[in-house]
């Protein structure tokens, strides 16, 4: 049981760190730029999805 709880705590800690980093890099704005990753293809220039907007 304690192992499972430890795994859950670790997962939550990683998730909090990741989302904190994302917020910090987006300079705290909700309407921050879209992260375009994965591959060398040119990013679309049209309207982009933004759920938080």
């Amino acid at each position: 049981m304690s192992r499972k709880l430890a795994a859950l705590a670790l997962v939550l800690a990683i998730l909090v760190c990741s989302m904190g980093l994302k917020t910090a890099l987006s300079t705290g704005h909700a309407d921050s730029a879209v992260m375009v990753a994965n591959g060398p293809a040119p990013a679309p220039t049209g309207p982009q999805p933004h759920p938080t907007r």
Partner: protein
Amino acid sequence: MPGPLALAIWYVGIVLEIAFVVCSIARKSFFRYLFLNTYFLLGLGSDAARYYFLSRFGQSSGEYCYAYFYTDALLTLALYIALISLYARVFGELRFNRHVRFGAALLLLGTALFSYAVVAQSEKRLTTDFAYELSQNLYFVGLVLTYILWGAVLKLRETRTRLVQFILALGLYFSAYAACYALTNLSSRYSVVQYMSGAIGCLLPLTWTFTMLRHTEESRLEPARLLAVAR
């Protein structure tokens, strides 16, 4: 269509992705690094789909935007699995594979739930928004996981050169994209930022191909040396 520089960067990236898969096959390491190869094969498929939509509808079209972000979500998921496969290789000797798989699945589930919570109010484009948000969040989870893995490599004194170089290259790749993201938020009006993400996209296939070419599976090094400081 995008400018010649953006297209040139894209073509170079495609060549490098093919080069990694070819080198893996030539070095008889395709199945050893199956998930890394799968990531690049999916990348090539995504490039083909993106090129189709780009040439048919244009860079500012909604079709290209959808194709781009759906394939991006798929690729981020594939990269996450590739990263977990590196975790499994590092912790494999300690027989932690089951725990790694369980933790990875739990983390993926947590990220998916978090992403869903963010987009739950969006009724019109729930699937698109969810795919986009999951991709973005999973990317940052991958970034944090890579740094944790590098810490584990140093702690466990991992000596397999290929594995160490793959992890280092992945850390560099994630960090460069994160820096690019921050820079875009600060100064998106500068055109150089637009080319940066494409150029960074070439970084991972370039470094991994170089590693695959230069080092064999038997190559060993001592990462502890990286921590040495001049006295």
